[in-house]
């Protein structure tokens, strides 16, 4: 399915490297887009394209945290709780997010809409606390903004500009 649906892209991609194996990560992303997560079938198709053993491909997929080996929701929320975000309240806010959605870390809502994961630094520490939803940034988070974002994404999906919602800086406290 992967090979049929994305043949032009795959062919172009393989042309970027002197060895096929180097297309591993980009192909795993492509397979994840096609299947929603890396099913055994998806892994096998990637292995076939690269002429590798599926075990080999699985080993690489398992190393990286952005590859999902289990089903995930339509929107994957990755919430940063690393030191710079945690200094401005991210841990408390992350607990609030889990409570609001009634989830444990890594869980998916019963309607299949949201999966929540704790993320490592998202390189947005100047606008902390921060999270990504399907790789779009949502910055300067507060409880109110979290409620607002969840409702908005549930109703309308993600903003079409690919930039997420970058709220104005929080009021500065002196």
């Amino acid at each position, binding site marked *: 399915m992967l090979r049929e649906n994305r043949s032009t892209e795959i062919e172009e991609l393989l042309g970027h490297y002197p060895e096929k194996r180097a297309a*591993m990560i980009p192909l795993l992303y492509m397979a994840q887009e096609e299947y929603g997560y890396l099913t055994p079938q998806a892994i096998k198709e990637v292995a076939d394209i690269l002429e590798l053993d599926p075990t080999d491909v699985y080993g690489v997929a398992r190393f990286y945290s952005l590859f999902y080996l289990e089903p995930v929701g339509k929107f994957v929320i990755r919430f940063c709780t690393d030191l710079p975000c945690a200094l401005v309240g991210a841990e408390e806010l992350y607990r609030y997010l889990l409570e609001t959605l009634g989830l444990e870390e890594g869980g998916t809502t019963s309607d299949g809409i949201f999966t929540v994961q704790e993320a490592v630094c998202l390189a947005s520490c*100047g606008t902390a606390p921060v999270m990504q939803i399907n790789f779009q940034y949502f910055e300067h988070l507060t409880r109110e903004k979290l409620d607002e974002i969840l409702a908005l994404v549930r109703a309308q999906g993600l903003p079409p500009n690919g930039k997420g919602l970058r709220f104005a800086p929080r009021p500065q406290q*002196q």
Partner: protein
Amino acid sequence: MEQVYIVLRHREIPDIDQYETYVAHGGYEGLRVALEQAPDEVIELVKQSGLRGRGGAGFPAGVKWGFVPKDVFPKYLVCNFAEGEPGTFKDREIAEYNPHQLIEGIIIAAYAIQANTAYIYHRGEFTFAAQQLRRAIAAARAHGWLGEDIQGTGFTLNIYLHPEAGAYICGEETAQLSSIEGHLGQPRLKPPFPATHGLWQKPTVINNVETLTNLPMILRHGAEWYRQWGTERTPGTRVYCVSGHVVRPGNYELPASVTARELIFEHAGGIWKGHRLKAFIPGGMSAPLLTPEHLDVPLTYDDLAAAGSMGGSGGVIVLDDQTDIAWVIAKQVAFYKHESCGKCSPCREGTYWQKMLADRILSGQASRRDVELLKAVSDQMTNTCFCPLGEASRMVVQGAYKYFADELYQWVEERRRAVEPAAV
């Protein structure tokens, strides 16, 4: 000091991500200058500028290029855009808002080392930045700055984006090469160095986004112009990323010689909520923390090394006086334990023990012996880890103990009294 925009030029020229705007402001002039010279002359100019790598190690860029053998082909350039050091968020701003200057810098560097293929290794999370870079590459190609026979010079270069997939270790240059080749992102033994045996065992240079983005301006204006800022050994500007307990967190591009005091208290507006400064981490989370007595240290690689820390990635994380050091250590070692790639046992097992002990101290269930043991484990990791990840994990703990060991002992004693009043 005023901010100087060599890299963050979009702060003054909002639409600089558009090709036409970029060209109207001197875009691709630096590359034109480079292409009129021999590759060796470009390397020499960059050496004279003193430009140092902005990824973390601060190695002089021109010197790194000079290690590439002339007679081995193909050669590769990798732009390290795996920005993931907690407290660092400059490369993403550059790629998102000033993408053409990065692309121009990549072409200049590739020309200097005579690489015909360049990969931008970007974090998988950076989808908007990747979109901006793809647009910039397409525009550069359409105007003859990429592809075959660039501007009639006979030089050929293709730039490809290669996504990373969520592993901090892939910021380390040899792990990055393994990751691009499709293997687990684990570091390789050095030597041989990537300059001679990099991607597919061919000569490869890995440069950070900010480093490369400086190049067009250095080529356009010359080494002397660049050296008007900073110090003899750390010339130019740096983009300092300020986060944590300050009034105005954000990126500030300043002469590299700026002091922590000026950066934190003038540019970033001082400590929030009227609190006082307890400590600051000057070069991304992996740099050992410093205290208010170090506020007048200039934030250059050498000055910070002399003060017992490091310049690292330029991420300045500010901690106010309400912050518990036990909590900070627990956050730090949890990160390294999570991101340890598992290749070498000092890091894999060391970070495991560090996290267990730090969590126990934080929880109040620890004794003085646990505080001693966390230090002992960190000392045992010293100079035994395969790559800088494990070394960072022990350095941050050692750094915290240097100034706050008493606070940790006090912390466990107070909490033990609270937990076990009858036992005292």
